[in-house]
């Protein structure tokens, strides 16, 4: 009896959690399959659901979607570039700080942690001015470099913590066998770090793919902006085609969701370990 009561209580919590989580996502999906002329009815389920919105999006059949594929491509380029550059910088830094014991390494890792603690939105104005001074506004590289700046501190911090846990005997054994630091990096360090590299690479990739504020400030022309900025631009006029906006939103949200679930195992362990520890 008591366990039945407990099961029931658990079940109620589970249902509430599901409703809370799924309502906005359900609404997003329902709007994306609602015909354009029914967008203003607010029905729980559209009278005649359609995939026409998705067709309009992929054929770029609306003024707001003129450059959809280009913008999707921009998002992809930015995300991949940020992930690769961040991984490169952070892996080398973690190796230098943790394994080579470079002088001042601890200071660098503390500074990295400090940077990680400052909300990115607060640095938007100086970052915009800096990119303006370099003449890089409306250039994808300004966004890529900015996001690398924000992703690397956390990446260095987490990778350094992982690297600290690897046994030093391995490096010593390799050194005795005559391996150079670079060889140790490639043959010993990288293979052992692989799981955390997946976590950090995914972290940087998703951070860049999801970024709105900086993309919105730094990029302006329709050919350069990323998809989230294009979504925000739908709101420029009062009669925004909301159903098309939602269909584009679903397409935009699918890749990160897929990546997240594919790498879930690494992500949860990797990110929670670095963010806060019990």
């Amino acid at each position, binding site marked *: 009896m008591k366990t039945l009561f407990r099961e029931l209580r658990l079940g109620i919590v589970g249902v509430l959690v599901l409703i809370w989580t799924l309502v906005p996502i359900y609404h997003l999906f329902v709007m994306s399959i609602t015909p354009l002329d029914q967008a203003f009815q607010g029905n729980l389920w559209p009278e005649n659901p359609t995939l026409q919105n998705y067709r309009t999006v992929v054929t770029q059949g609306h003024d707001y979607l003129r450059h959809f594929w280009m913008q999707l491509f921009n998002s992809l380029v930015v995300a991949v570039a940020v992930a690769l550059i961040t991984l490169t910088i952070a892996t080398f830094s973690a190796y230098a700080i943790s394994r080579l014991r470079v002088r001042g390494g601890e200071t660098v890792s503390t500074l990295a942690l400090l940077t990680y603690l400052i*909300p990115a939105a607060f640095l938007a104005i*100086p970052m915009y001015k800096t990119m303006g001074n370099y003449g890089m506004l409306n250039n994808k590289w300004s966004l890529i470099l900015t996001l690398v700046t924000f992703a690397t501190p956390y990446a260095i911090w987490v990778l350094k913590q992982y690297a600290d846990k690897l046994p030093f005997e391995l490096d010593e054994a390799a050194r005795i066998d005559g391996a150079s630091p670079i060889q140790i990096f490639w043959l010993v360090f990288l293979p052992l770090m692989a799981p955390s590299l997946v976590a950090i690479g995914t972290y940087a990739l998703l951070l860049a793919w999801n970024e709105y504020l900086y993309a919105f400030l730094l990029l302006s022309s329709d050919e350069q902006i990323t998809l989230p900025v294009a979504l925000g631009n739908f709101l420029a006029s009062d009669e925004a085609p909301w159903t098309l906006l939602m269909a584009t939103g679903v397409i935009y949200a699918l890749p990160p969701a897929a990546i997240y679930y594919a790498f879930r195992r690494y992500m949860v362990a990797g990110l929670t370990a670095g963010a806060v520890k019990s």
Partner: protein
Amino acid sequence: VGGPHGHHDEPRRAGLDAPPAIVSGNGVGDRLSDPLCRRFRDAGDLSRHLWALARRVAGQLCKAVQRPGLPEHLVNTALFLLLGVNVKMVLALLLSGFFVHSARWVRWVSFIFILPWAIPSIPTILSFRWMLNAEWGMINNILFKYFQIEGPNWLLEPNLALGAIIVVHIWKYLPFWTLIMVSGRLTISKDLYEAAEVDGANAFQKFIHITFPSVQNLYITSTLLSTIWSLGDFNSIYLLTGGGPADATQVLATLGIRYAFGMSEISTGMATVITALPLMIPLTFVMLRRLRREAAR
């Protein structure tokens, strides 16, 4: 930028293009050639420049503080932080008790529960925005259709709009913090609970005497970290209400951007953001110490 507090105390004879360090030589030092005196003069120059800089920053800060509505925006920021962060963290702590159950269906729920955090916030915030539309949104339509209630103007009444912002913020970030709390709870030894059960403790007593003391440290660290990050939450406000109606839901992060890019007042925008430093600096300092200490363990 210079404004009334600009360079009026600097000598006229200096060329306009000359860098500041040369500009402010006051004529006395030029006659003193030995290094010690020169060093004194340079130090004087430096302090005078720092002083001028401080006055300029103070001037901009005054301008930002005197802006109509800043107190209101600070109250918004405080409300957003206090409610958004604390409600979120308490919910995360309580919900983590649900997600530590190992039943298969609970794992499926956790799989779905993580969605808000896994997908980008832009589409979901915009989904909230349309759902809450007073005339055409799903919520008010359902309220009217099934309950004959005339729903309120969710995003156009300041208090409701701020409430909606807080809900959206919690919706987005609750999964992450729940995961953190779950990881904290999983480190607690099962024996403690079994011993408590033998002693006849109920669920509430177990929570107060075992669970909370064990995750207390984690809870505080998480709350501080979440406060810093929530201070920089731009999307939840900007994309849901745009800071409206009539700037009633602006917080510091959105206000700074609005001054700098909406009204082309870069300095006022930066000064607005800087008003958060009295909160930011101590929080960052405490966090830095806590995180480093935990990493060292």
